[in-house]
């Protein structure tokens, strides 16, 4: 046994010191790794450094004197790794939000299980459960449980297993509140009467139900916020497990993830001009308060100009500067490769092509960037909101593909609009705008879009993939 080896060679306290120092090194690798993930040039190495930190942490833990059942540990470690590897290799880039959602959930579940197992173990020894441990176990169960079922719920919504529309039922808030109250009361009971396992399972059950109920009323358009928040929670759950075990590395790693998830949550909320409470409890999109044309300037003259692909190709081909605005509709149609081909053809004609990416263009933060990267679009051509907006006036043609609410000028001009205040890509400032859209159906927020009725806007009706392919063919003929 390795355990025997180590403890035979080294005095126990030496071993403890070595293990703690090694954990410190692992934590440092996590910090450096995350830091390097922040720049495209170093990101890949950063990810590997973090993975090395993880391998170190696992290795040292396996040498710990309380880990002796090597057969079972090896089997479970390998089983988990194989499942993870297969999933990571197979998942399509469009399904990345679901993948990250599931992984968040599993991380949260593991943390909750660790907390529950430690409590159970102490009860089995017959020793009294220290209050500190009990409090942290309860916190770990709550956070981990909510992360697990909340993530699975988000997965089901993204995957279309459950409707993406917000699900509400009568007395929703009172039900949620009484569940929370029930959790607090049971938690307090467990602190006063430690060792009651039935109450422990009751707490677990409540937190699991709570996770479902929290995500249920949240609409599909808000998933970028939900995924980010659950990401943050999965980190906090790991921290809680660290508190339970008195393991500083778990606390550090969990806090880092918690912070990163929270920052992304904030960025996503800001991109939609919503507060976190509004996202969680607002059931956005369920009420059709959308006031139709919402006084959008030229309400009288609702004429739409449509354009055919040949004409559109001419406009694009003879432009100096084109900004492509991809929305989730483009990703759903799997049109990103065709879009890249179109950009290639335009560049051949000397057109300056850029991509204008709204923060919530995809289903999770940065999702659209990944989808375009998969289609070999260089990341230097991807422009953020703040970079491209001041520049739209110099753009000859803005080509909007499968995006709607994120280019709706009402968000800027019409205080009555439900999305008023949301930062948009100001394509209406470009000299011309072409919108590829299946029909005049409204977007996620259920709103009409004033952009479509503007004089400079032309609509190219049809599926994104088909129309873009036709554009490619037509542009090819230009020289």
């Amino acid at each position: 046994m390795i355990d025997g080896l180590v403890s035979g060679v080294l005095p126990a306290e030496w071993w403890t010191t070595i293990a703690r120092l090694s954990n410190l090194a692992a934590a440092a690798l996590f910090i450096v790794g995350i830091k390097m993930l922040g720049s495209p040039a170093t990101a890949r190495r950063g990810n590997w450094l973090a993975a090395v930190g993880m391998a170190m942490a696992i290795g040292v833990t396996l040498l710990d004197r309380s880990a002796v059942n090597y057969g079972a540990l090896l089997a479970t470690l390998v089983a988990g790794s194989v499942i993870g590897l297969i999933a990571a290799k197979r998942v399509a880039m469009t399904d990345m939000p679901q993948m990250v959602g599931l992984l968040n959930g599993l991380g949260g579940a593991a943390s909750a299980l660790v907390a529950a197992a430690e409590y159970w173990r102490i009860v089995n020894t017959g020793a009294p459960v220290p209050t500190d441990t009990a409090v942290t176990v309860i916190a770990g169960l709550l956070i981990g449980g909510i992360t697990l079922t909340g993530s699975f719920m988000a997965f089901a919504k993204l995957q279309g297993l459950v409707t993406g529309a917000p699900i509400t039922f009568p007395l929703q808030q009172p039900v949620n509140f009484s569940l929370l109250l029930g959790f607090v009361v049971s938690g307090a009971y467990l602190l006063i009467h430690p060792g009651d396992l039935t109450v422990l399972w009751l707490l677990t059950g409540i937190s699991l139900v709570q996770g479902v109920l929290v995500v249920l009323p949240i609409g599909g358009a808000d998933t970028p916020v939900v995924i980010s928040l659950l990401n943050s929670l999965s980190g906090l759950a790991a921290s809680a497990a660290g508190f339970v075990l008195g393991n500083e590395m778990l606390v550090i790693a969990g806090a880092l993830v918690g912070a990163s998830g929270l920052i992304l949550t904030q960025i996503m909320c800001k991109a939609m001009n919503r507060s976190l409470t509004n996202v969680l409890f607002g059931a956005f999109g369920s009420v059709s308060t959308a006031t139709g044309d919402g006084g959008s300037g030229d309400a009288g003259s609702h004429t739409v100009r449509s354009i055919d692909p040949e004409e559109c190709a001419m406009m694009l081909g003879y432009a100096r500067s084109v900004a492509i605005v991809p929305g989730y509709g483009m990703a759903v149609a799997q049109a990103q490769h065709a879009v890249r081909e179109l950009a290639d053809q335009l560049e051949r004609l000397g057109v300056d092509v850029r991509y204008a990416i709204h923060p919530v263009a995809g289903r999770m933060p940065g999702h659209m960037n990944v989808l375009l990267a998969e289609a070999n679009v260089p990341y230097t051509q991807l422009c953020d909101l703040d970079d491209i907006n001041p520049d739209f006036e110099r753009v000859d043609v803005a080509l909007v593909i499968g995006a709607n609410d994120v280019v709706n000028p009402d968000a800027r001009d019409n205080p009555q609009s439900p999305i008023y205040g949301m930062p948009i890509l100001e394509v209406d400032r470009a000299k011309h705008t072409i919108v590829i859209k299946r029909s005049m159906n409204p977007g996620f927020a259920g709103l009409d879009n004033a952009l479509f009725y503007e004089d400079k806007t032309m609509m190219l009706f049809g599926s994104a993939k088909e129309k873009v392919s036709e554009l490619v063919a037509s542009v090819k003929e230009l020289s």
Partner: protein
Amino acid sequence: MSETLVTGLVVFVLASFVGFEIINKVPPTLHTPLMSGANAISGIAVVGAILAGGAAQLSGPTILGLVAVVLAMVNVVGGFWVTDRMLQMFKK
């Protein structure tokens, strides 16, 4: 509060500040890989799971620990791998 809990809180608060500090200026292009990479790191719970599941005698708590090992390892390996898959697509 015990010494361990206080130390834990100190470490937690400081680590959170470090996290906010190093992540705050990440460009949107990297938000998805950042999240999946961070997600893999949250699989650090595997350490706790190994300690909980590694006891010589199989019992209720040990079984919970072993289940946790599987789940956390899916999280760790899946997370790091998928992050790498995305990052190798990013080109200048």
